[in-house]
């Protein structure tokens, strides 16, 4: 589902986001320096406008609601996967069975697929190699990891997050 939002709204949103980021990383609040900040943020927004990358994909404000539910789960999965891979690496006889698998994707937008593929890569033990329209080629460090991924829990959660928008 691609939200049709007013590009002007998105541009203003981007400007405000950039300016907050600028203020936070600057730490100096005199008129001269803040005017530099306003100028540079405006320049970035103007260039993005000219490059036509201000759309709901470039400024994915609509995903924030879903992300609040998805990210904690993802972090927990990443911690579990880290412990798993750590065990495999530290064993004297390494318990690895590397293999290539393909997982189905059920996301409707490119952005959703990108989030899914990045989540796969961010989880140690699985790396997405190639993203197709309806499936992702994944390299897994072990058979159990691959089977866990093929159950599709992560896929469902990413799709749900995408649908919440």
């Amino acid at each position, binding site marked *: 589902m691609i939200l049709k939002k007013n590009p002007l709204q998105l541009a203003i949103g981007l400007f405000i986001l950039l300016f907050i980021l600028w203020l936070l990383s600057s730490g*100096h609040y005199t008129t*001269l*320096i803040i005017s530099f900040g306003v100028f540079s943020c405006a320049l970035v927004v103007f260039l993005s406008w000219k490059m036509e990358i201000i759309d709901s994909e470039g400024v994915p404000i609509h995903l924030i609601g879903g992300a609040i539910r998805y990210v904690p789960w993802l972090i927990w999965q990443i911690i579990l996967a880290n412990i798993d891979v750590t065990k495999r690496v530290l064993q004297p006889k390494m318990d690895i069975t590397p293999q290539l698998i393909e997982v189905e994707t059920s996301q409707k937008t490119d952005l959703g697929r990108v989030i899914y593929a990045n989540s796969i890569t961010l989880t140690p033990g699985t790396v997405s190699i190639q993203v197709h329209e309806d499936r992702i080629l994944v390299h897994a460090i072990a058979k159990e990891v691959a089977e866990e991924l093929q159950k599709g829990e992560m896929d469902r959660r990413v799709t749900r997050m995408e649908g919440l928008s």
Partner: protein
Amino acid sequence: MIDILHIILFVFLVAIGIAIIRLRDLFAAVMLAGIFSLLSATLFTVMDAVDVAFTEAAVGAGISTLLMLATLSVTSSEEKPTANRRQALIGLIVVTFTGAALIYGTLDMPSYGDPDAPIHHHMAPRFIEDSPEEIGIPNQVTSVLASYRGYDTWGETTVILAAAIGVMLLFATPVVSRRREEELLAPGEGSG
């Protein structure tokens, strides 16, 4: 603590340098050069030369790695063993003398962190105390570069722009032949 860190980082730098010399594979040498510049940036940060470390981030780790890789694409990625021992000897002599001259040049410089160094008496206090009021920029290096010696910086940027345009013009011509490329990317034997 910090002193130990200095020594360790310098040892790392020397180790990487030796590895770069020993390796025949030039691609690996370029990657190690990238690591070298990351290490030296860490060293600059540890020694409180943050602005130099910033430059090292952009120039050393970014641009120069890419330029070297671009050079590899138009040449070979394997170093030819030099059979000529006399040439190698001349090179060694030149390098030794240059190094000796450079080290000699540093002998009458104030030692690292010396509070009595001239720089801490003439220039630095004025920039540190007056530049925030005079220029209005919190970073003194920026005020020196962009205002006190603004014309100089202007010239420098012009030179860099000209150099960049020259390099881009050079690379705009498709000189990479298929054979060269295969050579560059031929992976080594797999392990395992």
